[in-house]
């Protein structure tokens, strides 16, 4: 076997293979073929008297530049890039069998998620009846445990982690259901909104397995979350078309499909789509260009322009922010969006690259978001005494504070980076270190707010 005794040479070959693997144009068998060629060449060169290192340099040089090579491969197989989008794994070095098993597991879990949401109906809780609050409070609990199971299976994490990860879900089920919420209660709505955020962190633990503190695991999870959101929206669009046709066709035979849609199609589809979407992200992550960073690049300049125009207009006309009921939440969402833009730009960025124009733009975006938010906060603070503390307001203020702290420090780190005083890696570390804060705050809202505010 032409495996080389020279350990360094084998390592270099492995590294070269890794480079090839990152290119979308090469399939597993192409890489094997090219590697075979490289090894033949290396054997010939070492037999001719070249040392391992020299032989490797010559052989790689003769192979040609990877850019040119992958361009030629892509040209010879123009269908590949597209086909991989549709067919998924198996085409690469994974055998067709594992792809098949995974498909079955995913389908099974998706169906389980779709059915899980119908289980309470067996006990008389109607989703399209008066029991909607129950479903909203527990929304995450129908799907996310199954998603966690998928990742435990996929990563081969074993029974121990299954037990550990089951604990937070059990706790969540308790806190979602023990409180005696009053009718139309704000704290109940807050629970429904915040519980999934907390549980998403648990999914993250399953996703990264034991790489939470190392190896960019959390950044991978951030990428995954963004891609999932995009796939989910795409699937939902398809779902709307399906619903539209269902209504139209049943109407043509004078039947109302409301119960079918509201009771089955929407909830089951929404639950199953989470699993299917996650599987799509997992299957395609090596294949297509990630969408989230592309959207980030597209929208960062636009949002920067919006914020600057807003500030400019406000300075010019002197009109104060009209503090309405929803305004605080609106600015929360704005900050969350800016954090998202920063996060996804960071996830796609090479931490080693030098600051460029886009980094300047991001800094401008963060700073202008900070200014806009401080203006809004000032306006709100001026009137908060008159408002009194309701659960919604405290939650919104807390979130604003959390995002503000994140962005302020981000701005500082970004400024240092742009002026060549610090590295981008610090900024990235800050962003991912901050992730659990969101989940912890959400957990706090779920656990503390209802009793503190008397379940209003």
């Amino acid at each position, binding site marked *: 076997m032409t495996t080389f005794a020279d350990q360094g040479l084998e390592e270099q070959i492995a590294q070269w293979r890794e480079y090839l693997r990152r290119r979308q144009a090469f399939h597993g068998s192409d890489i094997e*073929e090219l590697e075979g060629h490289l090894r033949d060449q290396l054997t010939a060169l070492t037999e001719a008297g070249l040392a391992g290192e020299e032989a490797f340099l010559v052989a790689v040089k003769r192979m040609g530049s990877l850019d040119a090579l992958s361009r030629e491969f892509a040209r010879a*197989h123009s269908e590949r890039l597209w086909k991989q989008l549709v067919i998924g794994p198996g085409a690469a070095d994974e055998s067709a069998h594992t792809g098949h098993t995974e498909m079955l597991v995913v389908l099974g879990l998706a169906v389980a998620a779709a059915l899980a949401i119908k289980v309470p109906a067996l006990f008389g809780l109607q989703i399209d009846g008066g029991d909607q609050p129950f479903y909203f409070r527990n929304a995450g609990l129908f799907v996310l445990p199954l998603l966690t199971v998928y990742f435990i299976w996929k990563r081969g994490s074993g029974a121990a982690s299954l037990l550990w990860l089951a604990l937070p879900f059990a706790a969540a089920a308790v806190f979602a259901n023990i409180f005696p919420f009053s009718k139309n209660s704000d704290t109940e709505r807050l629970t429904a909104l915040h519980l999934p955020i907390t549980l998403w962190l648990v999914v993250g633990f399953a996703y990264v397995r034991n790489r939470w503190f190392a190896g960019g695991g959390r950044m991978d999870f951030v990428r995954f979350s963004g891609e999932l959101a995009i796939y989910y929206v795409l699937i939902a669009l398809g779902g709307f078309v399906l619903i539209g046709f269902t209504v139209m066709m049943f109407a043509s035979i004078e039947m109302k499909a409301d119960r079918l849609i509201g009771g089955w199609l929407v909830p089951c589809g929404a639950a199953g789509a989470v699993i299917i979407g996650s599987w799509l992200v997992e299957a395609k992550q090596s294949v297509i260009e990630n969408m989230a960073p592309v959207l980030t690049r597209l929208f960062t300049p636009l949002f920067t322009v919006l914020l600057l125009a807003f500030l400019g207009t406000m300075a010019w006309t002197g009109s104060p922010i009209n503090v309405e009921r929803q305004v605080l939440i609106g600015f929360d969402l704005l900050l969350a969006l800016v954090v998202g833009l920063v996060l996804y730009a960071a996830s796609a960025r090479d931490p080693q690259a030098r600051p460029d124009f886009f980094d300047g733009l991001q800094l401008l975006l963060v700073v202008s978001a900070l200014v806009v938010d401080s203006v809004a906060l000032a306006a709100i603070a001026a009137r908060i005494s008159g408002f009194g503390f309701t659960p919604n307001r405290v939650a919104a203020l807390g979130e604003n504070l959390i995002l503000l702290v994140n962005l302020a420090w981000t701005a500082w780190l970004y400024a240092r980076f742009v002026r060549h005083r610090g590295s981008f890696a610090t900024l990235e570390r800050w962003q991912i270190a901050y992730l659990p804060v969101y989940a912890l705050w959400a957990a706090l809202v779920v656990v503390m707010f209802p009793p503190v505010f008397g379940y209003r």
Partner: protein
Amino acid sequence: MDMSKDLVAASATPLVLAILAEGDSYGYAIIKRVAELSGGHLQWTDGMLYPVLHRLERQGLVAAKWSASDNGRRRKYYRITKEGRTQLATQRQQWQVVDGTLRGIWMQACTA
């Protein structure tokens, strides 16, 4: 001698087909054979042969098969097909026309 890129690209198909017409072969051996036949004048970037082979495979001019090689690794062997032989014959005629024409004009230049 530095050959023009276009010429190398144009001659790749008939060369590969002709070498495979001698007998089944694999990438590395084909490259070695090209170097040998051209006395080292035709230098390909090694990797570039494979897209050519894959394209020929898709066109049905060659067929490929993975089998074990003497060194224990899998190797992809290529074989010329019937269509490949027909294509080779056509290409051969075309190249002979080019070759003959150029020869004619250069002979005149010598004798004149």
